[in-house]
């Protein structure tokens, strides 16, 4: 059977694409290539000038591993949602509120795990709300989540009264989430990798992921083949919120101080990381590896700018250029290969 198939393959005029071309044409191909080049260059420069460019120094590697996971984990959620064809601008607000809720519950004398569950519930509820409103009323998720972004932020101020909570989680939990292994490996980074692997498996090896891509790629045909578009999208919204909660929790327990005011523009940084990683704004296209590398690139460049003592606005300039040119390059690559 398959012998016959291969025979009919040989008889045609199609040029077999090389592995490298295939790789470059894949959604994450370009960003991975650029990433490897930047990483290699930084390492070489750092080996030649260890005193002027401390890229490979232990403190720098630790700082990177602490910074990347927050954006990385959130971006994975945002990326999955973008693949289903939707946006979530409320992730930054969910990030801030859920961490505050965890600290609040814990400070009230509950076990830390109860606090974590409370935070996850907050995320799940807002994910359900975002997804339900978007899919039930046909409102663009950009609008829905812009609304919930403001609602959650103001709700957060209402809960917190702008008073930060200072807290110390139990050692075991702190070590588990933010400890260090073998001297060089931060647990945050380990969790980031674990979550990326889980997300990759869901997207590429599980029915749910197949439905995410299908729904984002062509909603009409997904309905026609019997995929429940509404359920699929709501699930993606919930996963996205859960990622924001995990990132939120992780980012506060090391320092032990939390306020509900999230860093502004976090949600857009996530979108930027996803776009750099080859996720299409139109849905149906994107890879977890790309998103993860996009998030890493973001902090890598930030790091280079700090180490090189360059003005901070270079980061924004770079991100802007990458978005504009990166997307254009991806478009060209798709046509060419």
């Amino acid at each position, binding site marked *: 059977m398959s012998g016959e198939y291969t025979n*009919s393959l040989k008889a045609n005029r199609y040029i077999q694409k090389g592995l490298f071309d295939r790789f470059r044409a894949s959604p994450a191909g370009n960003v991975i290539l650029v990433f490897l080049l930047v990483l290699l260059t930084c390492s070489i420069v750092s080996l030649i000038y260890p005193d002027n460019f401390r890229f490979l120094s232990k403190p720098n590697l630790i700082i990177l591993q602490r910074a990347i996971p927050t954006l990385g984990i959130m971006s994975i959620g945002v990326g999955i949602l973008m693949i289903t064809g939707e946006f979530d601008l409320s992730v930054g607000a969910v990030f801030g509120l859920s961490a505050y809720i965890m600290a609040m519950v814990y400070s009230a004398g509950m076990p830390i795990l109860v606090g974590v569950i409370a935070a996850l519930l907050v995320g799940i509820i807002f994910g359900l709300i975002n997804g339900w409103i978007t899919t039930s009323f046909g409102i663009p998720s950009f609008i829905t989540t812009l609304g919930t972004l403001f609602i959650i932020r103001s709700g957060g101020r209402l809960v917190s009264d702008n008073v930060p909570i200072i807290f110390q989680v139990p050692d075991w939990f702190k070590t588990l989430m933010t400890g260090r292994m073998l001297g060089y490996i931060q647990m945050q980074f380990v969790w980031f990798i674990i979550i990326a692997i889980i997300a990759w498996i869901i997207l590429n090896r599980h029915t749910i992921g197949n439905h995410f891509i299908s729904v984002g*790629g062509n909603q009409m045909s997904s309905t026609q083949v019997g995929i429940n578009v509404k359920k699929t999208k709501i699930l993606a919204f919930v996963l996205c919120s859960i990622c924001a909660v995990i990132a939120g929790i992780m980012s506060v327990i090391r320092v032990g101080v939390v306020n509900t005011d999230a860093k502004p523009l976090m949600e857009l940084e996530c979108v930027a990381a996803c776009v750099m990683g080859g996720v299409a704004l139109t849905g149906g296209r994107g890879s977890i590896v790309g998103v993860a590398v996009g998030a890493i690139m973001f902090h890598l460049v930030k790091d280079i700018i700090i180490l090189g003592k360059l003005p901070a606005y270079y980061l924004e300039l770079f991100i802007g250029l990458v978005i504009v040119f990166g997307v254009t390059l991806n478009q060209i690559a798709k046509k060419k290969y």
Partner: protein
Amino acid sequence: MKNLKSKNPLLSVKGIAKSYGHVRALQNIDIDIHSGEVLGLLGDNGAGKSTLIKILSGIIRPDKGQIFRKGKEINILSRKDSEEKAGIQTIYQDIALVKSMSILRNIFAGQERKTKLGFLKLNEMRDTTMQILNDHVKIAGITSPDLLIEELSGGQAQAVAIARAVHFQRDILLLDEPTSALSVRETNKVHSIMREIADAGNSCVFVTHNLYHAFQVCDRFVVFSHGEVVKSSTKENTSLDELTDLILAN
């Protein structure tokens, strides 16, 4: 064919009506579909053919009317109902494939082979895809089941959609202008597939604008005009000229 009328039809629709705002897409439609026949649905652009197909496949709901399978009334509220209660598989006019996904993933979208925990059995699906592509519609130029639909021509993509429907075949296959993007060879293949399905005792409903094709493969014709049935006739009782006149009449 002649004595089929006396038998209980496999599927019958009675008094179906559907409006889109002010447009009466369908009014008072009565049609029987019998086992072992290829039924041609004919009519000018906008006559209502696709609307009926969509109602039967559970994409839209009629405003009025009933659907019976072997004499028993059924409600088709979803694609799943259409497949499971009515025994229908559909190939749509606008190709229902996800362009950014591979052939393999498209063929199994919504009916994936999976483990109890929902993980995809990719190897099994790949083998089946190769088999489907080889058996049903031999498609020129398809080099691998992992090609994305956007890397295929319109005809190749349509052929994939047909292969999928034929593979998951139930006892009624609805085809809404399936061959408009296909080459002569692929078109003939689709025609012979329809014939095979009918000769095996199942049935096909074939929507087409090509009367020569229709006359070649169909056993019976229903002509739509402005949302109503204006003619229903077996092949023996009509002619190419009569059908042409009916379609052009309005």
